């Protein structure tokens, strides 16, 4: 993504006077939040509470975490959740291969006389493979993005609860890692299943909606400066109309951006019905949806 580079504002959230200032800073990165989202993000920063974001796919849940990392100048660590995700893939693992190599190297150098010391050296930090959760704590202050938490299992949620409540991880062989400043945690969910109340209770909850017309035009203009104002407005209007059609997958901002890019690439300066029909694949991802939209009067939907 080619985002305009912005000078990070003070890493300390106290440097931000309120949601408005955070909104302005986010706008600098090309992410245009509404009042609710800006307030949510601000409170998450100030209250050190994880931010739980739900909403349709493609409304900018993940993008917010990246924008927040950019605004605060913090590094971002992303944990993509999936079914069967285990603690060793989220926290840390020992690099057994390298440990074995180390042992063999020591043996070859005939340095094996002090076995206790050798054994201790096997559990050195350099043999520890830090996974996103540990990385985020070690590198605090940071931004930790736990993406699509609804895809992980129940047990993993319980485990997350433990880490997110005190931001410490204890490694039996090494000791406890504690974050000096709790990372800014953003959890996203597409609501494929209900996430446990206990986890939600620890978080601020925000439901993201598709943006209003003006905001969507502004987002398109901001993220795709090459696209004409006219095209941006018409794409936003058509996308908004598509969202009212009760489709299997209503298009999100990501789709409207794809569509505008596709149209622009084909040389469109406004929403030409013919080009629009040819590029529908950028917005609609189901055959049924495409047929439905095609069968409706084209003129009514595009252009005009």
């Amino acid at each position, binding site marked *: 993504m080619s985002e305009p580079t912005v000078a990070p504002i003070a890493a300390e959230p106290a440097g931000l006077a309120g949601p408005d200032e955070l909104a302005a800073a986010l706008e600098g990165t090309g992410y245009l939040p509404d009042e609710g989202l800006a307030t949510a993000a601000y409170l998450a920063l100030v*209250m050190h509470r994880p931010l739980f974001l*739900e909403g349709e796919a493609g409304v900018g849940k993940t993008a917010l975490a990246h924008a927040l990392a950019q605004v605060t100048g913090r590094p971002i660590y992303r944990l993509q959740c999936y079914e069967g995700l*285990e603690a060793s893939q989220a926290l840390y693992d020992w690099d*057994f291969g390298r440990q074995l190599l180390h042992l063999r190297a020591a043996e070859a150098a005939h340095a094996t006389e002090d076995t206790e010391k050798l054994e201790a050296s096997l559990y050195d930090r350099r043999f520890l493979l830090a996974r996103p959760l540990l990385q985020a704590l070690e590198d605090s202050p940071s931004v930790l993005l736990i993406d699509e938490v609804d895809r992980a299992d129940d047990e993993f949620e319980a485990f997350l609860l433990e880490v997110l409540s005190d931001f410490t991880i204890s490694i039996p062989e090494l000791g406890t890692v504690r974050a000096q400043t709790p990372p800014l945690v953003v959890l996203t969910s597409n609501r*494929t*299943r209900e996430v446990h109340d206990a986890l939600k209770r620890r978080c601020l909850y925000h*439901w993201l909606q598709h943006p209003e017309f003006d905001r969507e035009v502004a987002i398109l203009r901001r993220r795709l400066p090459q696209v004409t104002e006219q095209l941006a407005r018409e794409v936003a209007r058509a996308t908004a109309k598509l969202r009212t059609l009760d489709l*299997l997958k209503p298009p999100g901002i990501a789709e409207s951006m794809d569509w505008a890019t596709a149209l622009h690439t084909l040389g469109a300066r406004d929403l030409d019905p013919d080009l629009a029909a040819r590029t529908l694949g950028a917005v609609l991802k189901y055959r049924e949806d495409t047929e439905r939209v095609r069968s409706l009067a084209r003129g009514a939907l595009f252009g005009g």
Partner: protein
Amino acid sequence: MLGFARTLRHAGVPASPDRVEAMLVALGSLDVLEPGAVYWAGRLTLCAGPDDLDRYDAAFAVYFSGERPRAPRTVGKPEVRLAASAPLEQGTGDGDDETDAPDLAVQASADEVLRHRDVAELTPAEREHLRRLFALLAPATPMRPARRRRPDTRGTIHPARTVRRALRSGGEVTRLMHHRRRTRPRRVVLLVDVSGSMAPYADALLRFAHAAVRARPSSTDVFTIGTRLTRVTREMRLRDPDRALAASGSAIPDWSGGTRLGEVLKAFLDRWGQRGTARGAVVVVCSDGWERGGADLLGEQMVRLRRLAHAVVWVNPHKGRSGYEPLTGGMQAALPSVDHFVSGHSMAAFEELTGVIQRA
């Protein structure tokens, strides 16, 4: 603020004390004179899902416009009567005296007869007896291969464990360690029709659903369908079947109403199914297929459901009657997309259904 929290709880938003505390902290971090501050501080901390948002907005409007909080909304609601809980209140004592007295053999044979009786034709006392049989029903869950592996004596080689073990013996690989794929319960989704035509069976079907949820709380989901879709999984998690049914009864707004199967199924697939609830699941539709709207939409949605689900089971209590033919428009439209078509009219049929679900 506490008064507001109380109003919210009446409106059905779970504003627990720790959430209220979070709201106060949030208010402290915001400029309270800012117009949206109170609204957002409350919404971000007190709500837990999209369903809460409308209730929150309504309660917020009421409370901060100076209106008195209204009485809990349960007042005007029709009292839901569940077939099996009605006789329970009147004659528990009598029933106990009667059923405790006979010796085991008699009782066992009575159970056996009851197992095959149509639940719609039972007397209140027999229903009460059946209620106990439901408590013994333990539906087994279908399993699926999991991504995760588990140490095993056979299977593929587990490099990490092999090397870890080698470290103990000075770096010498003395034994190969293995692991194998685990199995995990497959998700089961029950869609129970609570419309008027299914009223004699809805109670038994919901009891069956309760038994299924109790067996695997984390991988079972229950929805009721009729004129609208209601998710009752949370209510079904209550341990006691009667309380669970009463709770879901008050959550179901369209009890004994009409049927709009096609539309409701579409709502299920749009809001839940496609996002993952039905994906790879065993979906059990419990309905007589009596469709008031056109059957085309139902047919379309069933095709869609079958593409998402691992298996589609249709339970129709009328199928148990002799001479039943699936002639209703809804049934005709749905059958091509159904993997297993079973009856659900008696205890024996429910036992058979558990087998079908497990093997699906």
